[in-house]
């Protein structure tokens, strides 16, 4: 596949933004969090609404920024694989110690009485990768869309009571078309990432992913009955679902058993959702 297209997949050095840019991004996000808190406080002040105490606002800002910075620190502690560093050094005329060849033909060096890789003096960190940034950006845009725009308000209203939404003067049919179009666009983005990650694509790419997606959204607090749910909930749900799947792969569980577990999680999540919505009524 095209090298430029592969940047979307996050598998090649060109799609790693590195530690410096990761920190810059993190600080920009922290600034956005703090500005958001200040702005909402100013808005509420303008209309004389009850305010949160100042320490609570500060606490929220600190926790939000700490989460962002901690995540960035984790991302920035992954070094490039040493072969790629060697290639990078050769391409950019950076000299690294020649070392001595071991039995496998890899160059090794000695440092403080220990055998180390010769590239250890020269480290590059991956930082955030392009697909991760795309996912976060999509999450942010969708959060904005669902909570701050008329479109999002209508989506929730239609989910809660389609008849009432129509009577309130919302063009529900047109709204549903727009929702499906949005879903198509999001699937398109995920297909780009998926195919460039695999560096290959078939017409059955993403088959049965819908099960994971449904499980992730329901785990994230979205009601299947409609009208209830959040974007960040769905993203946390997706993270959890993917953790389960990755964990099972690491445990070397057979694919068939993995599917059983995913199915069981889905059924449990839907059961809990039903139980919850019945209790609310």
């Amino acid at each position, binding site marked *: 596949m095209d090298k430029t297209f592969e940047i979307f997949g996050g598998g090649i050095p060109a799609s790693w933004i590195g530690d410096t840019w990761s920190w810059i991004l993190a600080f920009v996000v922290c600034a956005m969090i703090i500005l958001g808190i200040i702005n909402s406080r100013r808005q509420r002040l303008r*209309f004389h609404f009850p305010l949160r105490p100042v320490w609570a606002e500060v606490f929220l800002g600190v926790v939000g920024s700490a989460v962002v910075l901690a995540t960035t620190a984790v991302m920035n502690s992954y070094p490039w694989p040493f072969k790629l560093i060697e290639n990078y050094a050769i391409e950019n005329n950076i000299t690294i110690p020649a070392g001595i060849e071991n039995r496998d033909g890899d160059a090794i060096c000695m440092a403080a009485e220990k055998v180390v890789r010769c590239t250890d003096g020269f480290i590059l960190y991956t930082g955030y990768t392009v697909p991760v940034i795309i996912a976060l950006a999509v999450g942010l845009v969708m959060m904005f869309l669902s909570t701050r*725009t008329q479109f999002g*308000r209508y989506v929730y*209203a239609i989910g809660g*009571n389609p008849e*009432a939404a129509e009577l309130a*003067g919302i*063009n529900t049919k047109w709204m549903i078309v727009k929702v499906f179009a949005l879903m198509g666009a999001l699937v398109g983005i995920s297909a780009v990432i998926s195919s460039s990650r695999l560096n290959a694509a078939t017409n059955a790419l993403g088959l049965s992913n819908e099960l994971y997606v449904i499980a992730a959204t329901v785990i994230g607090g979205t009601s299947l009955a409609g009208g209830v749910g959040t974007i960040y909930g769905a993203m946390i749900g997706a993270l959890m679902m993917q953790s389960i799947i990755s964990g099972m792969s690491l445990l070397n569980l057979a694919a068939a058993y993995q599917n059983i577990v995913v199915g069981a999680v889905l059924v449990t999540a839907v059961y809990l959702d039903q139980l919850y919505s019945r209790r609310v009524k």
Partner: protein
Amino acid sequence: MKTPLIEMRDISIAFGGIKAVDHVSIDLHPGEVMGLLGHNGAGKSTLIKILSGAYPRDTGKIFMDGKEIAIHNPRDAKAHGIETIYQTLALADNVDAAANLYLGRELKTAFGTLDDVAMEAECRKVMHRLNPNFRRFKEPVSKLSGGQRQSVAIARAIHFNARVLIMDEPTAALGPQETAQVGELIKQLKAEGIGIFLISHDLHDVTDLADRICVMKNGQVVGTAKVDDVTHDEILGMIIAGKCPEGAVAGPGAI
């Protein structure tokens, strides 16, 4: 004679083989309360749902100030200042009171995003007038009591300078005190020159508040009368038997 604010002429709608509304004509003047009476299934709710744009009519015309207006959906009706409080309230249960109040005509900031704070501020003002004890602005309306939900629905109908207000069983979910409050509100709106269609099962409610009544039976108008010209018994006779008394103008449904 003055031109009526709203005139529905020869309206019909059929669901399958059943004629829910059968060649009904009805009019409403500014500052007038028109009580719509009839059995369950007489076609009252269907008739007003045609006016509010919820149902497309099969035949008939609607005039406002003597000019014909086109109502194909609820948006058209609202554009002409026809607001409705439905029997089912038609609230979006999962969003809060302010969102319901402005559903379909949200306030926006300069950036085109929702101005939630302004909407909430406005909502607090309106709700304070209707229901001073209302405090639960942040909760979805599904968590509110029947009376509170009703006041949200009423607030939504009167907040946007309605010219015609349709109230379908506005007091069904309310206690005696709130019912009296709604009665006061109707008188106040009437004084402002708003025309009101009032649908109720409670004959006393209607005779107390309405200026004229229109009785329907089996989708047809039995008769229209000034409230003072007919007695309670005569109205009951119209509703149950379809018998039109002398004080009323007989419609096609009278025997």
